[in-house]
Protein backbone atom coordinates (compact mmCIF):
# COMPACT_ATOMS: atom_id res chain seq x y z
CA UNK A 1 0.00 0.00 0.00
CA UNK A 2 1.48 3.31 -1.07
CA UNK A 3 1.51 5.86 1.73
CA UNK A 4 1.32 9.56 0.96
CA UNK A 5 3.55 10.79 3.79
CA UNK A 6 2.72 14.45 3.36
CA UNK A 7 -1.02 13.81 3.51
CA UNK A 8 -0.63 11.57 6.55
CA UNK A 9 1.44 14.16 8.43
CA UNK A 10 -1.02 16.90 7.54
CA UNK A 11 -3.95 14.76 8.67
CA UNK A 12 -2.30 13.97 12.01
CA UNK A 13 -1.46 17.63 12.64
CA UNK A 14 -4.99 18.59 11.69
CA UNK A 15 -6.56 16.05 14.06
CA UNK A 16 -4.30 17.16 16.92
CA UNK A 17 -4.97 20.88 16.44
CA UNK A 18 -8.70 20.25 16.08
CA UNK A 19 -8.84 18.16 19.27
CA UNK A 20 -6.94 20.81 21.25
CA UNK A 21 -9.05 23.72 20.12
CA UNK A 22 -12.34 21.90 20.59
CA UNK A 23 -11.47 20.62 24.06
CA UNK A 24 -9.31 23.26 25.71
CA UNK A 25 -10.55 26.62 27.12
CA UNK A 26 -9.76 29.89 25.34
CA UNK A 27 -7.42 31.21 28.03
CA UNK A 28 -5.28 28.07 28.01
CA UNK A 29 -5.12 28.12 24.22
CA UNK A 30 -4.08 31.79 24.27
CA UNK A 31 -1.22 30.84 26.64
CA UNK A 32 -0.20 27.90 24.46
CA UNK A 33 -0.08 30.07 21.37
CA UNK A 34 1.84 32.78 23.22
CA UNK A 35 4.43 30.09 24.03
CA UNK A 36 4.45 28.87 20.44
CA UNK A 37 4.96 32.42 19.27
CA UNK A 38 8.04 32.77 21.48
CA UNK A 39 9.39 29.42 20.30
CA UNK A 40 8.75 30.23 16.64
CA UNK A 41 10.55 33.56 17.01
CA UNK A 42 13.59 31.97 18.70
CA UNK A 43 13.81 29.19 16.11
CA UNK A 44 13.02 31.13 12.93
CA UNK A 45 13.36 34.84 13.68
CA UNK A 46 10.49 35.26 11.22
CA UNK A 47 8.58 38.49 11.84
CA UNK A 48 5.68 37.52 9.59
CA UNK A 49 5.19 34.20 11.37
CA UNK A 50 5.25 36.01 14.69
CA UNK A 51 2.55 38.44 13.43
CA UNK A 52 0.33 35.58 12.31
CA UNK A 53 0.63 33.74 15.63
CA UNK A 54 -0.05 37.04 17.44
CA UNK A 55 -3.34 37.26 15.55
CA UNK A 56 -4.19 33.73 16.68
CA UNK A 57 -3.34 34.67 20.30
CA UNK A 58 -5.64 37.71 20.09
CA UNK A 59 -8.50 35.57 18.79
CA UNK A 60 -8.32 33.29 21.83
CA UNK A 61 -7.80 36.25 24.17
CA UNK A 62 -10.95 37.90 22.81
CA UNK A 63 -12.90 34.70 23.44
CA UNK A 64 -16.35 33.56 22.22
CA UNK A 65 -16.91 36.55 19.95
CA UNK A 66 -14.40 34.88 17.59
CA UNK A 67 -13.76 31.42 19.03
CA UNK A 68 -17.40 30.30 18.68
CA UNK A 69 -16.98 30.67 14.91
CA UNK A 70 -13.61 28.90 14.97
CA UNK A 71 -15.03 25.93 16.86
CA UNK A 72 -18.09 25.72 14.64
CA UNK A 73 -15.88 25.59 11.55
CA UNK A 74 -13.63 22.93 13.10
CA UNK A 75 -16.63 20.76 13.98
CA UNK A 76 -18.01 21.03 10.44
CA UNK A 77 -14.68 20.64 8.66
CA UNK A 78 -14.12 17.67 6.39
CA UNK A 79 -10.85 15.99 7.51
CA UNK A 80 -9.62 15.19 4.00
CA UNK A 81 -10.25 18.70 2.69
CA UNK A 82 -8.81 20.32 5.82
CA UNK A 83 -5.62 18.29 5.69
CA UNK A 84 -5.29 19.29 2.01
CA UNK A 85 -5.51 22.95 3.03
CA UNK A 86 -2.94 22.39 5.79
CA UNK A 87 -0.69 20.45 3.48
CA UNK A 88 -0.70 23.33 1.02
CA UNK A 89 0.05 25.83 3.79
CA UNK A 90 2.94 23.72 5.13
CA UNK A 91 4.15 22.83 1.65
CA UNK A 92 4.50 19.11 2.50
Amino acid sequence: MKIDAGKLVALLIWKAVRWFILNMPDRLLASVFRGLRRLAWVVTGDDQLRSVITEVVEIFEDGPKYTDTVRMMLREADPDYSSDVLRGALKI
Partner: protein
Amino acid sequence: MEKIRLGVIGGGRISDLNILGYLSHPKCEVLAVCDINEDVARARKAEWGADRHYLDYRELLDDKDIDAVEILSPHRLHHPMVLDAAAAGKHVSVQKPMSIDIREARQMIDACKDAGVMLKVFENFVFYPPYCKAKELIEQGQIGEPLSININLGAGVGGWWVPLKTWLWRVNWDECGGGPTIFDDGFHKMSIARWFFGEIETVKAWVDFTFGAIDSPAMITWRHKNADRLGVWETSMSPNLQMSGKYYTADERVELVGTKGVIWVTRCTAKLMEIPPLILYRDGCSTVFDDMRDDWGDSFHDSGRDFIDCLLEGRQPLLSGEDGLALMQFWKAIYNSFDQGLEVRPDDMTE
Protein backbone atom coordinates in the same frame (compact mmCIF):
# COMPACT_ATOMS: atom_id res chain seq x y z
CA MET B 1 -19.05 72.73 -4.29
CA GLU B 2 -15.63 73.31 -5.79
CA LYS B 3 -13.82 70.74 -3.73
CA ILE B 4 -15.09 67.74 -1.79
CA ARG B 5 -13.68 67.30 1.70
CA LEU B 6 -13.90 63.64 2.54
CA GLY B 7 -13.90 61.72 5.81
CA VAL B 8 -13.04 58.00 5.71
CA ILE B 9 -14.62 55.78 8.35
CA GLY B 10 -12.64 52.55 8.66
CA GLY B 11 -8.94 52.11 7.99
CA GLY B 12 -8.85 48.34 7.41
CA ARG B 13 -7.49 46.25 4.55
CA ILE B 14 -9.80 47.41 1.78
CA SER B 15 -9.19 51.09 2.50
CA ASP B 16 -5.82 50.58 0.78
CA LEU B 17 -7.81 50.44 -2.46
CA ASN B 18 -10.90 52.57 -1.79
CA ILE B 19 -8.66 55.56 -1.06
CA LEU B 20 -6.87 55.54 -4.41
CA GLY B 21 -9.38 57.56 -6.44
CA TYR B 22 -9.84 60.10 -3.66
CA LEU B 23 -6.12 60.72 -3.31
CA SER B 24 -5.69 61.21 -7.06
CA HIS B 25 -8.73 63.43 -7.69
CA PRO B 26 -7.69 67.12 -7.93
CA LYS B 27 -10.99 68.25 -6.42
CA CYS B 28 -11.03 65.91 -3.44
CA GLU B 29 -9.28 66.41 -0.13
CA VAL B 30 -9.06 63.48 2.30
CA LEU B 31 -9.56 65.59 5.39
CA ALA B 32 -10.21 63.08 8.17
CA VAL B 33 -9.85 59.42 9.10
CA CYS B 34 -11.73 57.47 11.73
CA ASP B 35 -10.93 54.05 13.18
CA ILE B 36 -11.66 52.50 16.58
CA ASN B 37 -8.00 51.48 16.71
CA GLU B 38 -5.98 54.64 17.39
CA ASP B 39 -2.78 53.21 15.90
CA VAL B 40 -4.62 52.53 12.65
CA ALA B 41 -6.29 55.95 12.64
CA ARG B 42 -2.98 57.73 13.15
CA ALA B 43 -1.16 55.57 10.60
CA ARG B 44 -3.79 56.18 7.92
CA LYS B 45 -3.85 59.90 8.70
CA ALA B 46 -0.11 60.05 8.08
CA GLU B 47 -0.24 57.78 5.04
CA TRP B 48 -3.04 59.70 3.33
CA GLY B 49 -1.95 63.19 4.38
CA ALA B 50 -5.21 63.78 6.23
CA ASP B 51 -5.54 66.68 8.61
CA ARG B 52 -7.26 64.97 11.53
CA HIS B 53 -8.27 61.62 12.97
CA TYR B 54 -11.12 60.39 15.15
CA LEU B 55 -11.80 57.24 17.13
CA ASP B 56 -15.60 57.66 17.16
CA TYR B 57 -17.32 58.03 13.80
CA ARG B 58 -19.98 60.28 15.35
CA GLU B 59 -17.29 62.88 16.10
CA LEU B 60 -16.19 62.75 12.47
CA LEU B 61 -19.81 63.28 11.40
CA ASP B 62 -20.02 66.32 13.71
CA ASP B 63 -17.05 67.87 11.90
CA LYS B 64 -18.52 70.79 9.93
CA ASP B 65 -15.57 70.83 7.53
CA ILE B 66 -16.49 67.44 6.06
CA ASP B 67 -18.79 67.27 3.01
CA ALA B 68 -18.86 63.53 2.36
CA VAL B 69 -17.93 60.25 3.98
CA GLU B 70 -16.66 56.89 2.76
CA ILE B 71 -17.90 54.11 5.05
CA LEU B 72 -15.62 51.05 5.21
CA SER B 73 -16.88 49.37 8.35
CA PRO B 74 -18.17 45.78 8.88
CA HIS B 75 -21.51 45.25 7.15
CA ARG B 76 -23.70 45.28 10.27
CA LEU B 77 -22.56 48.87 10.89
CA HIS B 78 -23.46 50.19 7.43
CA HIS B 79 -27.08 50.90 8.32
CA PRO B 80 -26.55 52.92 11.54
CA MET B 81 -23.58 54.79 10.06
CA VAL B 82 -25.40 55.77 6.86
CA LEU B 83 -28.44 56.93 8.82
CA ASP B 84 -26.23 59.00 11.12
CA ALA B 85 -24.27 60.41 8.17
CA ALA B 86 -27.48 61.43 6.42
CA ALA B 87 -28.78 63.06 9.61
CA ALA B 88 -25.49 65.00 9.79
CA GLY B 89 -25.99 66.19 6.21
CA LYS B 90 -23.04 64.27 4.75
CA HIS B 91 -23.07 62.70 1.31
CA VAL B 92 -22.34 59.00 1.66
CA SER B 93 -20.41 56.32 -0.15
CA VAL B 94 -20.86 52.97 1.60
CA GLN B 95 -18.82 49.91 0.72
CA LYS B 96 -20.65 46.93 -0.75
CA PRO B 97 -22.63 45.00 0.35
CA MET B 98 -24.98 47.81 1.13
CA SER B 99 -26.53 46.37 4.29
CA ILE B 100 -27.37 43.06 5.94
CA ASP B 101 -30.98 42.95 4.83
CA ILE B 102 -33.51 44.59 2.50
CA ARG B 103 -35.31 46.48 5.27
CA GLU B 104 -32.04 48.25 6.19
CA ALA B 105 -31.34 49.05 2.54
CA ARG B 106 -34.75 50.75 2.13
CA GLN B 107 -34.22 52.78 5.30
CA MET B 108 -30.78 53.90 4.11
CA ILE B 109 -32.20 55.06 0.76
CA ASP B 110 -35.08 56.90 2.44
CA ALA B 111 -32.83 58.57 5.02
CA CYS B 112 -30.49 59.94 2.37
CA LYS B 113 -33.37 61.07 0.18
CA ASP B 114 -35.08 62.85 3.09
CA ALA B 115 -31.80 64.54 4.05
CA GLY B 116 -31.06 65.58 0.46
CA VAL B 117 -27.70 63.83 0.39
CA MET B 118 -26.22 61.47 -2.17
CA LEU B 119 -25.98 57.74 -1.47
CA LYS B 120 -23.51 55.65 -3.43
CA VAL B 121 -22.93 51.94 -2.94
CA PHE B 122 -19.20 51.56 -3.61
CA GLU B 123 -18.95 48.70 -6.09
CA ASN B 124 -15.69 48.49 -8.01
CA PHE B 125 -16.32 45.66 -10.51
CA VAL B 126 -18.49 47.90 -12.71
CA PHE B 127 -15.47 50.17 -13.06
CA TYR B 128 -12.98 47.42 -13.93
CA PRO B 129 -11.58 48.58 -17.30
CA PRO B 130 -11.86 45.21 -19.13
CA TYR B 131 -15.51 44.87 -17.99
CA CYS B 132 -16.17 48.46 -19.12
CA LYS B 133 -14.66 47.65 -22.52
CA ALA B 134 -16.74 44.46 -22.74
CA LYS B 135 -19.90 46.46 -22.05
CA GLU B 136 -18.91 48.95 -24.72
CA LEU B 137 -18.44 46.12 -27.23
CA ILE B 138 -21.83 44.65 -26.34
CA GLU B 139 -23.53 48.03 -26.73
CA GLN B 140 -21.86 48.38 -30.15
CA GLY B 141 -23.49 45.09 -31.16
CA GLN B 142 -20.20 43.24 -31.51
CA ILE B 143 -21.67 39.95 -30.24
CA GLY B 144 -25.15 40.54 -31.67
CA GLU B 145 -28.08 40.05 -29.32
CA PRO B 146 -26.81 39.03 -25.85
CA LEU B 147 -27.85 35.51 -24.88
CA SER B 148 -26.01 34.51 -21.70
CA ILE B 149 -23.45 35.43 -19.10
CA ASN B 150 -21.32 32.72 -17.51
CA ILE B 151 -19.34 33.67 -14.43
CA ASN B 152 -16.75 31.36 -12.97
CA LEU B 153 -15.36 32.12 -9.55
CA GLY B 154 -12.59 29.97 -8.20
CA ALA B 155 -10.75 30.56 -4.94
CA GLY B 156 -7.09 29.64 -4.64
CA VAL B 157 -4.15 30.47 -2.38
CA GLY B 158 -1.68 33.32 -2.39
CA GLY B 159 -2.29 37.06 -2.51
CA TRP B 160 -2.32 39.65 0.24
CA TRP B 161 -2.67 39.04 3.95
CA VAL B 162 -6.06 39.73 5.47
CA PRO B 163 -6.20 39.80 9.30
CA LEU B 164 -7.66 36.59 10.73
CA LYS B 165 -10.28 38.50 12.75
CA THR B 166 -11.49 40.09 9.52
CA TRP B 167 -11.96 36.64 7.99
CA LEU B 168 -13.81 35.48 11.09
CA TRP B 169 -16.48 38.21 11.00
CA ARG B 170 -16.88 37.64 7.29
CA VAL B 171 -17.77 33.95 7.80
CA ASN B 172 -20.14 34.82 10.64
CA TRP B 173 -23.51 35.23 8.93
CA ASP B 174 -24.93 37.46 11.69
CA GLU B 175 -22.00 39.86 11.36
CA CYS B 176 -21.65 39.67 7.60
CA GLY B 177 -25.31 39.46 6.54
CA GLY B 178 -24.75 36.32 4.51
CA GLY B 179 -21.99 34.02 3.32
CA PRO B 180 -18.51 35.16 2.35
CA THR B 181 -18.72 33.83 -1.19
CA ILE B 182 -22.21 34.46 -2.50
CA PHE B 183 -23.18 37.50 -0.44
CA ASP B 184 -19.97 39.31 0.44
CA ASP B 185 -17.82 38.62 -2.61
CA GLY B 186 -20.87 37.67 -4.66
CA PHE B 187 -22.23 41.21 -4.52
CA HIS B 188 -19.60 41.95 -7.20
CA LYS B 189 -20.78 39.13 -9.44
CA MET B 190 -24.44 39.99 -9.01
CA SER B 191 -23.56 43.60 -9.84
CA ILE B 192 -21.93 42.79 -13.15
CA ALA B 193 -24.65 40.32 -14.13
CA ARG B 194 -27.28 43.01 -13.69
CA TRP B 195 -25.09 45.75 -15.18
CA PHE B 196 -24.32 43.74 -18.32
CA PHE B 197 -27.73 42.20 -19.03
CA GLY B 198 -30.37 43.96 -16.97
CA GLU B 199 -32.76 43.13 -14.13
CA ILE B 200 -33.20 39.57 -12.88
CA GLU B 201 -36.53 37.80 -13.32
CA THR B 202 -36.01 34.53 -11.47
CA VAL B 203 -33.26 32.53 -9.73
CA LYS B 204 -32.46 28.87 -9.05
CA ALA B 205 -29.50 28.04 -6.83
CA TRP B 206 -27.67 25.09 -5.30
CA VAL B 207 -25.12 25.78 -2.57
CA ASP B 208 -22.90 23.51 -0.52
CA PHE B 209 -20.87 24.61 2.49
CA THR B 210 -17.20 24.25 3.36
CA PHE B 211 -16.19 24.35 7.04
CA GLY B 212 -19.88 24.91 7.76
CA ALA B 213 -19.64 28.62 7.04
CA ILE B 214 -18.19 29.20 3.58
CA ASP B 215 -20.94 29.11 0.95
CA SER B 216 -19.02 27.36 -1.78
CA PRO B 217 -19.08 25.29 -3.97
CA ALA B 218 -22.24 26.59 -5.58
CA MET B 219 -24.13 26.77 -8.85
CA ILE B 220 -26.49 29.69 -9.35
CA THR B 221 -28.64 30.17 -12.42
CA TRP B 222 -31.04 32.90 -13.38
CA ARG B 223 -33.12 34.39 -16.13
CA HIS B 224 -33.03 38.09 -16.86
CA LYS B 225 -36.25 40.05 -17.32
CA ASN B 226 -35.33 40.11 -20.96
CA ALA B 227 -36.33 36.46 -21.26
CA ASP B 228 -33.82 35.62 -23.95
CA ARG B 229 -30.96 36.18 -21.55
CA LEU B 230 -29.74 33.61 -19.07
CA GLY B 231 -27.02 33.61 -16.44
CA VAL B 232 -24.87 31.01 -14.73
CA TRP B 233 -22.46 31.54 -11.88
CA GLU B 234 -20.31 28.69 -10.60
CA THR B 235 -18.12 28.93 -7.50
CA SER B 236 -15.45 26.49 -6.36
CA MET B 237 -12.59 26.28 -3.88
CA SER B 238 -9.18 24.89 -4.73
CA PRO B 239 -7.02 24.75 -1.59
CA ASN B 240 -3.82 23.98 -3.48
CA LEU B 241 -4.31 26.17 -6.55
CA GLN B 242 -1.52 28.72 -6.51
CA MET B 243 -2.60 32.00 -8.02
CA SER B 244 -0.75 35.10 -8.98
CA GLY B 245 -2.27 38.24 -7.52
CA LYS B 246 -1.66 41.24 -5.29
CA TYR B 247 -5.05 40.99 -3.63
CA TYR B 248 -7.53 38.18 -2.93
CA THR B 249 -6.84 35.02 -4.91
CA ALA B 250 -10.12 34.95 -6.77
CA ASP B 251 -10.03 33.49 -10.26
CA GLU B 252 -12.84 35.24 -12.11
CA ARG B 253 -13.58 34.39 -15.69
CA VAL B 254 -16.62 35.87 -17.41
CA GLU B 255 -18.00 34.72 -20.73
CA LEU B 256 -20.60 36.86 -22.52
CA VAL B 257 -22.35 35.01 -25.34
CA GLY B 258 -24.38 36.61 -28.10
CA THR B 259 -26.05 35.61 -31.33
CA LYS B 260 -22.94 36.30 -33.37
CA GLY B 261 -19.99 36.44 -31.02
CA VAL B 262 -18.45 35.76 -27.65
CA ILE B 263 -16.48 37.95 -25.24
CA TRP B 264 -14.20 36.53 -22.58
CA VAL B 265 -12.92 38.63 -19.71
CA THR B 266 -10.19 36.42 -18.31
CA ARG B 267 -9.51 38.01 -14.94
CA CYS B 268 -10.37 40.68 -12.41
CA THR B 269 -9.16 40.32 -8.81
CA ALA B 270 -6.27 37.95 -9.44
CA LYS B 271 -4.44 36.70 -12.53
CA LEU B 272 -4.55 32.96 -13.06
CA MET B 273 -2.84 32.97 -16.44
CA GLU B 274 -0.71 35.27 -18.56
CA ILE B 275 -3.29 35.82 -21.27
CA PRO B 276 -4.97 39.03 -22.45
CA PRO B 277 -7.67 40.35 -20.12
CA LEU B 278 -10.27 40.65 -22.89
CA ILE B 279 -10.89 38.57 -26.02
CA LEU B 280 -13.65 39.03 -28.60
CA TYR B 281 -14.59 36.30 -31.05
CA ARG B 282 -16.84 36.98 -34.02
CA ASP B 283 -16.91 36.33 -37.77
CA GLY B 284 -14.38 33.52 -37.42
CA CYS B 285 -11.75 35.82 -35.91
CA SER B 286 -10.42 36.58 -32.43
CA THR B 287 -9.56 40.11 -31.39
CA VAL B 288 -7.37 40.54 -28.35
CA PHE B 289 -7.53 43.63 -26.12
CA ASP B 290 -4.32 43.90 -24.17
CA ASP B 291 -3.71 47.62 -24.08
CA MET B 292 -5.82 48.67 -21.11
CA ARG B 293 -5.38 49.07 -17.37
CA ASP B 294 -6.34 45.71 -15.85
CA ASP B 295 -5.23 45.84 -12.23
CA TRP B 296 -8.04 45.27 -9.71
CA GLY B 297 -6.91 48.43 -7.95
CA ASP B 298 -7.76 50.46 -11.06
CA SER B 299 -11.43 49.60 -10.56
CA PHE B 300 -11.38 51.01 -7.03
CA HIS B 301 -9.57 54.12 -8.24
CA ASP B 302 -12.19 54.78 -10.91
CA SER B 303 -15.14 54.08 -8.60
CA GLY B 304 -13.83 56.56 -6.02
CA ARG B 305 -13.30 59.25 -8.63
CA ASP B 306 -16.83 58.62 -9.88
CA PHE B 307 -18.24 59.46 -6.43
CA ILE B 308 -16.42 62.79 -6.40
CA ASP B 309 -17.39 63.56 -10.00
CA CYS B 310 -21.04 62.78 -9.26
CA LEU B 311 -21.03 65.15 -6.30
CA LEU B 312 -19.44 67.94 -8.34
CA GLU B 313 -21.67 67.40 -11.36
CA GLY B 314 -24.88 66.65 -9.49
CA ARG B 315 -25.58 63.29 -11.15
CA GLN B 316 -26.53 59.81 -9.99
CA PRO B 317 -23.67 57.60 -8.83
CA LEU B 318 -22.94 54.04 -9.92
CA LEU B 319 -24.16 52.16 -7.93
CA SER B 320 -27.08 54.17 -6.57
CA GLY B 321 -28.93 53.16 -3.43
CA GLU B 322 -31.69 51.70 -5.62
CA ASP B 323 -29.10 49.59 -7.48
CA GLY B 324 -27.87 48.34 -4.11
CA LEU B 325 -31.40 47.45 -3.06
CA ALA B 326 -31.99 45.45 -6.27
CA LEU B 327 -28.81 43.50 -5.55
CA MET B 328 -29.92 42.79 -1.99
CA GLN B 329 -33.12 41.34 -3.50
CA PHE B 330 -31.05 39.26 -5.94
CA TRP B 331 -29.02 37.88 -3.01
CA LYS B 332 -32.15 37.09 -1.00
CA ALA B 333 -33.62 35.27 -3.98
CA ILE B 334 -30.44 33.18 -4.24
CA TYR B 335 -30.52 32.43 -0.51
CA ASN B 336 -34.20 31.48 -0.48
CA SER B 337 -33.75 29.34 -3.59
CA PHE B 338 -30.99 27.18 -2.13
CA ASP B 339 -32.55 27.17 1.31
CA GLN B 340 -35.97 26.02 0.09
CA GLY B 341 -35.06 24.27 -3.14
CA LEU B 342 -37.34 26.55 -5.16
CA GLU B 343 -37.16 28.95 -8.08
CA VAL B 344 -37.45 32.45 -6.58
CA ARG B 345 -38.13 35.95 -7.95
CA PRO B 346 -36.00 38.82 -6.58
CA ASP B 347 -38.98 41.18 -6.89
CA ASP B 348 -40.79 39.06 -4.27
CA MET B 349 -38.00 39.60 -1.73
CA THR B 350 -38.96 42.14 0.91
CA GLU B 351 -36.88 41.19 3.97
